[in-house]
């Protein structure tokens, strides 16, 4: 059996990749994908602990996360499409109107 630590390390690496993607990429679609990556990294952690502790609660949490992620993806993509139609660009650095 693969030890728990391996799962956690993998999950942390995936999460960090997601964070870096969210913070640095210049394309909103990639940013959205990075957010999915972070969510799935968290899912992986939940599953690993669930298995390790022999409890079903972690798996329940994963279902919730997946449902939220699906909804978020739908809304997020819809927003991205309407932003693109409006501005012909998906670079978050060009979307800075909401400031002082």
């Amino acid at each position: 059996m693969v030890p728990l630590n391996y799962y956690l390390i993998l999950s942390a690496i995936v999460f960090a990749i997601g964070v870096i993607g969210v913070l640095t990429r210049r394309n909103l679609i990639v940013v959205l994908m990075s957010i999915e990556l972070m969510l799935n990294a968290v899912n992986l952690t939940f599953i690993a602990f669930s298995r390790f502790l022999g409890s079903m609660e972690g798996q329940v949490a994963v279902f919730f996360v997946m449902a939220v992620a699906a909804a978020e993806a739908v809304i997020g993509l819809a927003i991205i499409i309407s932003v693109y139609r409006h501005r012909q660009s998906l670079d978050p650095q060009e979307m800075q109107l909401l400031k002082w």
Partner: protein
Amino acid sequence: MVSSETGIVGYDLLRWIPLIPLLGSVINIFFGPALGRKNAGALGCAAVGASCAIAFYVFFQLPAAGIFRDVIYTWIDSGSFIVNLSFQADALTAVMLLIVTGIGFLIHVYSLGYMGHDEGEARFFVYLNLFIFFMLVLVMADNLLLLFVGWEGVGLCSYLLIGFWYEDVNNTIAGNKAFIVNRIGDLGFILGIFLLVTELGRQGIWTLDFAELQKHVQILSPATIGLITLLLFVGATGKSAQIPLFVWLPDAMAGPTPVSALIHAATMVTAGVYMTARLHFLFSLAPATMSLIAWTGAATAVFAATIALTQNDIKKVLAYSTVSQLGYMFLAVGVGAFSAAIFHVFTHAFFKACLFLGAGSVIHALAGEQNMRKMGGLKAHMPKTYWTYVIATLAIAGIPLTAGFFSKDLILWQAFSHGAYVLWGVGLVTAAMTAFYMFRQLFLVFHGECRADAHAQAHLHESPAVMTWPLILLAIGSVFTGWLGAPEYLWGSRWDHWLEAIFGRAEHHGSMAAEITVTLLTIAVVAVGIYWAYAKYGTAGARIDEGSENLIYRLSLNKYYIDELYDFVFVRPFTVCSRVLAQWIDPWVIDGTVNGIAAIARGMSWVTRGLQTGNVQHYAAGFLVGALALLAYYIGQF
């Protein structure tokens, strides 16, 4: 519904006496312009006329010692302190009711003619009716607080009426002056009320009701009563134009002449005398205040009379004569002769209203001219005005068998018989001066050559009947009202008998022989005053136009520079203070504080607003840093 304990009778008709003029005023406010000038004026007159009719009815219904009361609702109900909105009528109030509504009605009718050409006639009658309303509230109030409402109300209306022709800034300034000077007096008055309430409340009696007050004021200490009466008297000096607050009244001449008649004769200025008479039970307990009142009254009487000697404006003479006559009234109050004071209020209302309306008639005929040096010889052109003016002049001068003779003589005799010989002497001198300046005016205006310019002479005309009839009625009153208060050696006084229920039985000091001697002395000095005026202004070829350069003459002509003195002592420092506050304190200290705080906030935000870039990824980085910090913190906990 008779309350057996006090003899107070409920009487629902009373409320209509003040309410009808209020109604007239309100209707004219909203519909006056739609009604048109003539109808608005007629409505105003009808309202006061109806009120006058009810007042007469109440007067004849009222039993000698009875009190009618009409409680409308409870105004203030706070624990044991209850103030009703309620009106009362006793002998004193009934007399004042007749003066206010009767003279007020005649002045209203007169105004129909006088203001007939004025664009603002509807507005004028709104103010007049409101004035009558507040004056009626003042005299009919059964508690001190409601009296104060009327007191303030007449102050407001006087301001509105004095500044009626507001296009001329001088009129507005005169209105402001009346309002502000009255305000100073009112401050004293309301402080007096506060002190009375709290001091009585400390003894467990919470009331402002006159009947209750009369029962309980004895429990107050003399020093407290002295202070209360002093404060109340400060209010009276403001409203009734006594030294030192008389300065507003001569300036109040800026208003239309019927207003002067209304303020000076029927209402407003008599409020102070009425208030002291209404609270006579309180004032009687304060001998020091009473003596101050007497001296203030005497000083005001002689002071104003000396100013009136040299004035050239027809209304200014009458204004100072009013101040002087009010001085007589307070002299009477001060020696404890409340009945005599109210009697003089009563007779003075007739002849002073007649004089003012007569002066208005003259001014009307001369198209607004008020300088007596440009009048003269009007006797032939306006006989009705002339003869009524003569009668009123005789009355104010105190010629025997006119109203002024009886009332003024009564006051002088009261002063004499109470042993106040100096006050009596001052009153006597004032009587001589009164005769002089009134006859000077009569000669200057109606006798001799006409000195008006040709254009004005061509325009000369007697006033219409709507103006002369009030004059005639007032002239009749100027003679016969006095007969109610004749001295014992003639046919005795019905007046004292009528007011006995309020002021108690008049005490008779001194002998009848002494009284007759005093009267003869008064007549003698009055005759001297009249002869002096005749010799100087009435003879053919009298030199009217020149004044005199000597110091006393100039002092009198310039009103002893009192206005200038007040200007220097009070007004200037006040405006300087205001200017410092407005130009330095306000922009630098007040605005500086506010703007400084704003500047600090702006400076701080200038530093921190760089954080808000609008870039979502920067915010996300912020989240990350925060999350890592929290994580580090919790890890550090282990």
